[in-house]
């Protein structure tokens, strides 16, 4: 069967009444939990796993997938409205999205997010359908040395996220990497920087870190500045995109889709890199790069497209190799096994209904999400008109419950408190939290791949230069670093001379 025939078959599966219904339920639940800080798709899918026992496998997977990409849509909502990123991909959305909301363009930011996500989702679905097996070989050609160089490149470009001093941002990236090293060393099993606290042996909770540094610290800062709160209250502005905004967002969406589609295929780290890879690209390529940091629509459109595209293409390793690329995919594997389906390379032939039905339902789910989300923008924006004194206790309790429910452990809530204090301090010192979070996520992966590469090459450093993928990543990184530092140093010199 050719691709069109397969897709037609997929649509015939996905358009059955029960599959449509469960795709809708999944998308709705996903949107809802994406909006709740801390309650992520992992927690929800694991709670709903038992419900799927009684359903046919295809229906179950369609619903769970709906929760997953629904949560991607919902997660941007809190990032834009409340500066509360639920996962690494929405950290980037806070940078410009929250600024846009403060400028009274919350509606436009949300609409951009929904539209560019939809566009990227559509493209990525076609890619998954058309060249999934082909792209698998790309993912398999990445060795540990290549991953290390990719992560290093990611860290270098993450310093570009900086809105203030580049050196300070690199400092925060490095500190983020250090925080990421807390916990059990993968190679030796030794505990590092855990102070004998068993909860720390699996590392610091990302949710605690992100919520504390962004969400809770933001509550305190907002309460401190009554004038900032009044901005939130009064100037809401038009809900829809202006023609100018639409024109600016379109090329960014296209570029973001490309970045996300490619990076999403790489298991582990790929999806995390995609949204800020796109942000970096926009900052360098976009015509309005001078507006970045003040609420540039390009900085919402690109990363949102990228993370949604990556969310779709991250199904490729699962569907073609049977290997989960992240925690959500691991749960999908669990759901399949419970159904008696062994995920593996033969799934495409053995379960055509499941494979093509899921792909078709991904697109249908994206349509549903667009239909659900666009009318809801008005409602979300109204939320900003709720006086902050009523809003902040709600954000606070949602954060508490969210942080607790990740591991059912109060330790994570205490960590959130400590990171809130640290985040508050960083704000006062003009230290950027976003680069730190990216260092936190990529650092441990980078270490793992570095050490594995050295272990396999028997200590030969040349492995990083001999492999073409790794070498080109390092070359790009070096160029980016030079391009970034030169103007900065020049500026510093000018400042020194004029001072």
């Amino acid at each position, binding site marked *: 069967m050719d691709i069109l025939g397969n897709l037609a078959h997929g649509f015939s599966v996905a358009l059955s009444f029960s599959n449509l219904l469960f795709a809708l339920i999944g998308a709705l639940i996903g949107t809802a939990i994406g909006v709740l800080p801390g309650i992520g798709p992992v927690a929800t899918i694991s709670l709903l796993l038992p419900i799927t026992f009684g359903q046919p496998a295809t229906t179950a997977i369609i619903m769970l997938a709906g929760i997953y990409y629904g949560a991607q849509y919902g997660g941007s909502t809190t990032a834009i409205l409340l500066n509360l990123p639920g996962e690494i991909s929405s950290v980037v959305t806070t940078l410009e999205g929250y600024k846009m909301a403060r400028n009274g363009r919350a509606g436009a930011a949300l609409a951009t997010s929904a539209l560019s996500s939809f566009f990227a989702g559509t493209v990525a679905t076609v890619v998954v359908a058309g060249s999934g097996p082909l792209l698998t070989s790309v993912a398999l050609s990445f060795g540990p040395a290549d991953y290390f160089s990719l992560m290093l490149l990611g860290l270098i470009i993450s310093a570009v996220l900086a809105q203030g001093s580049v050196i300070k941002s690199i*400092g925060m990236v490095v500190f983020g990497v250090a925080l990421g090293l807390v916990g059990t060393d993968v190679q030796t099993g030794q505990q590092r*920087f855990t102070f004998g606290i068993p909860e720390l042996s699996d590392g610091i909770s990302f949710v605690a870190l992100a919520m504390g540094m962004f969400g809770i610290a933001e509550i305190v800062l907002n309460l*401190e500045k009554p004038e900032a709160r009044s901005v939130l209250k009064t100037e809401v502005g038009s809900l829809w995109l202006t023609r100018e905004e639409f024109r600016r967002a379109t090329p960014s969406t296209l570029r973001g889709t490309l970045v996300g589609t490619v990076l999403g295929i790489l298991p582990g780290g790929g999806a995390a890199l995609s949204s800020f890879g796109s942000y970096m690209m926009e900052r360098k390529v976009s015509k309005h790069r001078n507006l970045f940091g003040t609420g540039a629509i390009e900085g919402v459109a690109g990363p949102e497209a990228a993370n949604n595209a990556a969310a779709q293409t991250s199904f490729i390793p699962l569907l073609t190799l049977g290997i989960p690329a992240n925690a959500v995919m691991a749960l999908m594997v669990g759901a399949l096994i419970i159904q008696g389906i062994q995920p593996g390379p033969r799934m495409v032939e053995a379960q055509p209904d499941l494979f093509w039905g899921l792909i078709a339902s991904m697109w249908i789910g994206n349509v549903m999400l667009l239909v659900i989300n666009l009318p809801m923008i008005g409602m979300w924006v109204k939320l900003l008109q709720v006086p902050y004194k009523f809003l902040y206790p709600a954000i606070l309790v949602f954060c508490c419950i969210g942080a607790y429910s990740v591991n059912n452990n*109060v330790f994570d809530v205490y960590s959130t408190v400590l990171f809130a204090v640290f985040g508050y301090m960083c704000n006062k010192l003009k230290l950027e939290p976003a680069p730190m979070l990216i260092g936190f996520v990529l650092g441990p992966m980078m270490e793992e791949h570095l050490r594995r590469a050295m272990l396999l090459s028997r200590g030969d450093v040349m492995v990083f230069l001999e492999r073409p993928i790794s070498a080109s990543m390092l070359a790009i990184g070096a160029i980016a670093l030079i391009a970034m530092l030169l103007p900065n140093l020049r500026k510093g010199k000018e400042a020194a001379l004029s001072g």
Partner: protein
Amino acid sequence: MKINAKDVASGLLLILIAAVGLWLNGDHSLGSARRMGPGYMPMLVFWFQVVLGGIVLVMAFFNGPDPLEKWTGLDASMLVIAVIVGTLVGFAAPHLSSFFDNSYGSLGLGMLAGFLVVSYARGWRLLGFICAAMCAFCLLLEKGGLMLALAATIGIASMAEPEHRARPLGVLGITVFLLALCWWIFIKQLDIRVAVWPLQY
């Protein structure tokens, strides 16, 4: 002089954290380039952080001025007192009641006391009350149940807002509304694994 006080503090903070990290990293073996030990990467990372902190510190003397916010004498002294009180309470907690005997109860009580004390200073009030509210949530959640924990959290958090302090009835309204909302979302819909009412487990 155009000293950037924020950057001076940032540079010192980065260097201080890295120094502590390097000191703690003394326990971990460095290994060789082929089989890197657990201490290898932290060593690289922290030394790099020291260098960056140093650059930030040096550059701070040229790109200012950017002063820090003013601390009052009360802000500084309450911070010291809060740390002392928090530590003492943390140590004393296990002797006070078996209520604080598990799940970091002593830590929580110590932190709660510290944050409440520091809230006495105007400069710390908002941060102090918000953090204290979260500590109360943790302390009460497992034995007191979700409803009690949330009520305490909202009560303490509302102290951060002068308008709430003036109108306790309004706070009661918010509390009732949020309790109902959280019950509906987290217990009724999501069914998260947590005690809802006191002494459930």
